[in-house]
């Protein structure tokens, strides 16, 4: 790679040819301010013009984020012209922005606020007109306030280029230009999958999660309600970040303690139902392979240390490769773009949606609590989970009891961001809390359940169980390193009783699309299992996570996930005693009759692509 010499603010630096001025400046310890630039999604369209610099010999200013250096370039980043330009750009954005920072959900995390402070903006000179767009509240997951939009277009890039969903567009001219759902429809009427990556990249409060904290406060205060909460795998290594702890720190014990202090009647772990999902989905995978690839009617498997004969005839016709089903943005993506391939998706519900009905049936029975009084809250790194909990078919507890007063299986979903706000509001000194334990019945979990939070984790957890079920032998090594990492699409193969099981892991919907195009073209017939996480990095990078979730942060959280897995005494889902108990006392067999009525679901074709 050819190297070039440039001078930045009088300092000489040597960088590879083509390096953007912004990066070259870092080498000279010069920090050029930016706003719309977003490195991890490769968004460098130069919309905000805040990062402009002077280049000797050029009359006009150039943007540092996307102008490559040339040999001998002399760059000045702090001339009167540059300082005036930066301030003016910020003033322009502020002139059409609300100035109600104290009551905005991004108060304290807003990048426009931060930039105005960094650039010492002291006035907004021209009088602009505040915009008067309507707030789009149509989606259960995401709320758009176009009046706060600064047209940085990060959301358009993430939705079009990274997620390949294409639900957002830049539309209009001049001050009427705005980012909006395609065609100007309400968001719920588009192919938006509610992944929420737009809300992660939005620098201001133009796209935020739907705030349902009031519903949770109300339930907690209601003495009639027995309010239980479940915590997603990803939250175990994230929540501490808002309280000064590094990303990836295992704050499990503190999280439980904090939730108890908030006033929840029982604190459960979605890691528990992740283990449950593995039992159901692993069995389904074995069934599909046995029935379709091997042409069998039954197969002998080892379950909970005992040999049992599994009738696999119900799996005949369910095609391979099977895909995971725990990611609701992935589910909607399939419903919108691959409605012809819906029967590839596992019929299993997600861990969130398995715990809900179990709490209102199994748990209610064991504790003698009226299921009508049980209110299930979940804490998720995810915005799509709000959409999932609101799906009309997710009312299986109510069907089980034949009682319409029972309502949804999961009553409210809180994103990590909302829980953090509740904890702050309640004055909980999170970082200094002593560790506490989850409540029994739905509280014990294994490392396999924990790794659901990282891309590749569901696959690895499933293989840890499926291998032992099929071969009857203990795994020589628990860590399936080939399915780990952040490479967009990863492959592995495992020998199980003479069959080479081939698996694929994809994260980010753009990568999922590549895989599913191949499935549609019939090129994936010798693959057995595909794990898809809509969000880059997996759930730890979910749309409901803290907004500072760049790639480096996601990588730290992934490390935390696998470290916690390594430390746990139990690392395989089938070793979980509470899972063994629910099968012994309630469900009987995975994919059995009761499982099907509570823990399995169906999908809804939506698009026609």
């Amino acid at each position, binding site marked *: 790679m050819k190297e070039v010499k440039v001078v930045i603010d009088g300092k000489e630096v040597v960088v590879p040819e083509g390096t953007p001025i912004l990066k070259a400046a870092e080498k000279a310890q010069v920090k050029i301010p930016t706003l719309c630039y977003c490195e991890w999604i490769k968004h460098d*369209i*130069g*919309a*905000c*013009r805040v990062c402009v610099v002077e280049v000797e010999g050029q009359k006009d200013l150039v943007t540092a984020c996307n102008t490559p250096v040339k040999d001998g370039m002399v760059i000045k980043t702090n001339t009167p012209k540059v300082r005036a330009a930066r301030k003016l750009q910020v003033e*322009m954005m502020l002139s059409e922005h609300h100035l109600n920072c104290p009551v905005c959900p991004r108060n304290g995390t807003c990048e426009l606020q931060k930039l105005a402070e960094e650039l010492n903006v002291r006035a907004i*000179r021209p009088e602009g007109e505040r915009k008067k767009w309507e707030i789009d509240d149509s989606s259960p997951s995401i709320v758009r306030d176009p009046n706060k939009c600064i047209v940085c277009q990060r959301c358009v890039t993430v939705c079009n280029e990274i997620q390949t969903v294409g639900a957002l567009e830049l539309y209009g001219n*001049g001050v009427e230009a705005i980012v909006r759902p395609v065609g100007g429809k309400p968001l719920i009427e588009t192919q938006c999958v509610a992944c929420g990556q737009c809300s992660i990249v939005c620098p201001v409060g133009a796209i935020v999660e739907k705030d349902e904290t009031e519903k949770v406060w109300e339930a907690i205060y209601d003495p009639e309600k027995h309010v239980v909460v479940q915590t997603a795998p990803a939250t175990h290594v994230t929540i501490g970040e808002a309280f000064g702890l590094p990303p990836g720190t295992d704050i499990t014990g503190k999280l439980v303690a904090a939730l108890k202090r908030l006033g929840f009647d029982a604190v459960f772990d979605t890691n528990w139902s992740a283990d449950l999902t593995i039992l159901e989905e692993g069995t389904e995978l074995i069934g599909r392979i046995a029935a379709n690839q091997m042409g069998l009617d039954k197969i002998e498997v080892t379950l909970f240390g005992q040999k049992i004969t599994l009738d696999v005839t119900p799996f005949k016709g369910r095609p391979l490769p099977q895909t995971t089903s725990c990611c609701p943005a992935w589910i909607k993506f399939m419903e919108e773009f691959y409605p012809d391939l819906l029967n590839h998706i596992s019929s299993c519900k997600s861990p969130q949606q398995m715990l809900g009905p179990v709490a209102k049936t199994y748990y209610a029975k064991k504790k003698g609590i009226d299921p009508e009084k049980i209110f299930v809250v979940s804490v998720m790194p995810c915005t799509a989970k709000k959409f999932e909990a609101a799906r009309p078919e997710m009312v299986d507890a109510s069907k089980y009891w034949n009682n319409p007063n029972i309502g949804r299986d999961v009553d409210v979903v809180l994103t990590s961001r909302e829980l953090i706000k509740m904890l702050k509001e309640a004055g909980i000194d999170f970082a200094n809390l002593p560790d506490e334990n989850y409540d029994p019945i739905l509280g014990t979990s294994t490392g396999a359940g924990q790794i659901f939070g990282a891309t590749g984790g569901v696959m690895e957890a499933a293989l840890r169980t499926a291998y032992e079920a099929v071969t009857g032998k203990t795994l020589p090594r628990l860590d399936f390193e080939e399915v780990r990492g952040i490479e967009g699409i990863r492959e592995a193969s495992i020998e199980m009783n003479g069959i080479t099981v081939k698996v694929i892991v994809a994260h980010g919907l753009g990568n999922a699309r590549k895989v599913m195009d191949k499935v549609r073209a019939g090129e994936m017939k010798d693959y057995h299992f595909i794990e898809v996480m809509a969000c880059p990095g997996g759930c730890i990078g979910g749309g409901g996570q803290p907004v500072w979730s760049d790639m480096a942060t996601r990588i730290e959280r992934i490390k935390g996930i696998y470290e916690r897995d390594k430390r746990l005494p139990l690392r395989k889902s089938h070793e979980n005693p509470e899972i063994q108990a629910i099968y012994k006392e309630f469900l009987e067999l995975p994919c059995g009759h009761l499982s099907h009525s509570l823990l399995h679901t169906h999908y809804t074709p939506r698009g026609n692509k």
Partner: protein
Amino acid sequence: MQRELRTDLQDLYRVISVVGAIGGCIFLERDVSIEELIKFFVSFAQKNSCGKCVPCRVGTKWMEVLLERYLKGELSAEEKKLLKILAEDIGASSRCDLGKVAGKIVNYALEYGLIEEK
């Protein structure tokens, strides 16, 4: 333009080509002043701004508002200074020539006294 302007030829070419990009001739019903023509062009830039960059998207609106005030005789000295600052920034920072030329036209107009104190 009837005055003699000492200016950068490259810039002038760009000004002419972008003004020409309006689409041929502008037919006006009556005699207009040079200031009205400048404001007309700035309005054109605002209406056709693609919206992708802040200085053109928002800045040309500000310039339009200030020029309208000027044409009504309501532009204060302070506001005239602001117009100059704006024009310089928009002319130098915009992403493409539509915004840049809108800024440069107003900048030249101010420099050569085409927009006078009233």
